[in-house]
């Protein structure tokens, strides 16, 4: 289906062969009064055109901070990026000038935020805020920008777009507001969209609609999508691959169904086990014991070791790298990796 759409979009830049976005060994720290909080500690991931990467993790796992670093919207200071590369179409964005970086934001890489009500400017009409994309990047006239805003609103299926273009964010429902956020991200047909918990603030029924819309538009424009979430349910339907983050590191990567079927990291296992299931009615819900680590004092060794049922002495001393996960006979499992010394045992855990 995506290939068919590709041919109808000849005007777009030639498809980039390598990964659209390639994050390598990214480190982000926040300088606080109490010390340096290490929010991201060597993250690697990449996204290709048309691909959806879901980044999964609890709050404080560094998933949003990574996204903000990619967008270049971290406040620096207090944040700083001591190490790493963020390559977009092969070019390291961290080495770009301010203006060059700005031109990528919104036009090549766009972002959708969690809370559309606070993320939209309360005193400007949605039409104005949508049209602003065209005016700032293409120098479109005010009037033409408004027409394009209406088009966009129709694209994301906001009823009576023409009448509502001058309305303000607070006059829309939560779902409609999130559609406007999506429309805004989509405006300049970017190569990559980063959606940071796009459905968390919405009702369950609306969540599905918004996710479907996002997935549909992604396929249509053949965009890369990074979906940041803590909700395993949202991920299952739309993601191609998943990266699970814990304490600023990626602890497991896998194609989406494999991760659900056979997790190779005790943390992923714990996350899956803590999803409530109907057949467990009456039983106590499973919860990973302990609390997420304090980023000022990340535990030595594997950051998950104090909460891990499988932790051994080695886990308290050595930091596990992301090992490739294979079958017992050594057959490689494409795209799978686990940052656990005991991934083999975890994989077999039933």
């Amino acid at each position, binding site marked *: 289906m995506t290939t068919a759409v590709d041919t109808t979009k000849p005007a777009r830049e030639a498809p980039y062969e390598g990964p659209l976005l390639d994050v390598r060994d990214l480190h982000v720290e926040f300088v606080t009064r109490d010390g340096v909080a290490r929010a991201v500690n060597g993250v690697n991931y990449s996204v290709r055109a048309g691909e959806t990467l879901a980044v999964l993790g609890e709050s404080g796992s560094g998933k949003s901070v990574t996204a903000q670093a990619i967008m270049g919207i971290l406040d620096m200071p207090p944040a700083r990026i001591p190490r790493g590369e963020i390559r977009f179409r092969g070019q390291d964005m961290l080495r770009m000038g301010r203006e060059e970086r700005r031109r990528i*934001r919104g036009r090549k890489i766009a972002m959708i*935020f969690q809370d559309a009500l606070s993320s*939209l400017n309360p*005193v400007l009409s949605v039409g104005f805020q949508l049209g602003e994309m065209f005016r700032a990047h293409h120098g479109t006239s005010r009037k033409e920008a408004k027409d394009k805003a209406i088009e966009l609103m129709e694209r994301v299926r906001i009823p009576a777009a023409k009448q509502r273009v001058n309305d303000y964010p607070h006059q829309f429902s939560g779902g409609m507001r999130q559609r406007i956020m999506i429309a805004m991200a989509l405006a300049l047909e970017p190569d990559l969209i980063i959606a940071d918990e796009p459905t968390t603030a919405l009702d369950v029924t609306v969540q599905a609609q918004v996710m479907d819309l996002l997935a549909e538009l992604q396929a249509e424009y053949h965009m890369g999508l990074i979906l940041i979430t803590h909700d395993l349910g949202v991920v299952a339907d739309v993601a191609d691959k998943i990266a699970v983050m814990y304490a600023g590191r990626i602890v497991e990567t896998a194609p989406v169904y494999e991760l659900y079927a056979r997790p190779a990291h005790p943390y992923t296992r714990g996350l899956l086990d803590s999803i409530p299931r109907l057949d467990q009615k009456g039983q106590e819900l499973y919860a990973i014991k302990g609390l997420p680590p304090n980023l000022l004092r990340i535990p030595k060794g594997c950051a998950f070791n104090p909460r891990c049922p499988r932790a051994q002495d080695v886990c308290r001393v050595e930091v596990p790298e992301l090992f490739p996960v294979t079958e017992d006979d050594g057959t490689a499992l494409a795209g799978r990796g686990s940052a656990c010394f005991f991934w083999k045992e975890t994989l077999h855990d039933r």
Partner: protein
Amino acid sequence: MGSYVLRRVLQMIPVFFGTTLLIFLMVYTLPGDPVAALFGEKAADPAVVASIKHKYYLDQPIWKQYLHYMGNLFQGDFGTSFTGRPVTDIMAGAFPVTIRLALLAFVFEMILGLVLGLVSGLRRGSVQDTLVLILTLLVISVPVFVLAYIAQTVFATNLGWVTPTVQNSYDLSQLMLPAIVLGSLSLAYVARLTRTSIGENLRADYMRTAVAKGLPRRTIISRHLLRNSLIPVVTFLGTDLGALMGGAIVTEGIFNVQGIGNVLYRAINQKEGPTVVGIVTVLVIVYLVASLLVDLLYAVLDPRIRYA
């Protein structure tokens, strides 16, 4: 929007009658006989006193006096002062002076206050920010008459740029110094309010969105940041304009500006009931209109209020 305006206007009615009644009661129930005061040391002829009292309606019970006064007021008659001069005449002489002074002070505090607030709000913790904080704190803590005397000493006595007091109250250039002194306190408040407001809005989610949209920095500041940050500042400025129009008794006194503040001060001293009540009534109206305008402006700036 229409019903919002109507509601606001209707709210003004009880406020107007309440405040005028209060001021009327306070002025006319004050101890001391204004008519007797007219005669000074001499013993007054009871017949003359009675006729004056009758002429000014002072022989009636206070509620009747109030109704009578209000009745006249709605026909544009503010009454006559005890010296025989119509109160409207007195006000016509003083208000233009006060309006000039107030507008000068207002422009001064608005422009400089906003600029200082913006500069310090955008760069918190910088040298400029600290400087603005210290200067405004100084202005806020020093009483206005001290500031006025310092200004007089420096600019008139030492530098000789201006005359110590105002010779012609209608001359804008002469009103400059009193206006700066008058506006300085509000300037400090405007600067600090702007600074705080900008600091808060800088951290708002929609600012992050604006950056993520790839807008140029100046667009982000002028269109997204300022528009939101100015809402509380505009409210303050609006009410302050109302307050400035009320004349400034201390500043006008020190600089000999023949504005409403000066006239009011003298009228109070001389127990000139009709003048005091007349002026205060006008001030009440000015204040009410100013706050109505603020509310309307507020609704223009913030659509969430417009449709509430």
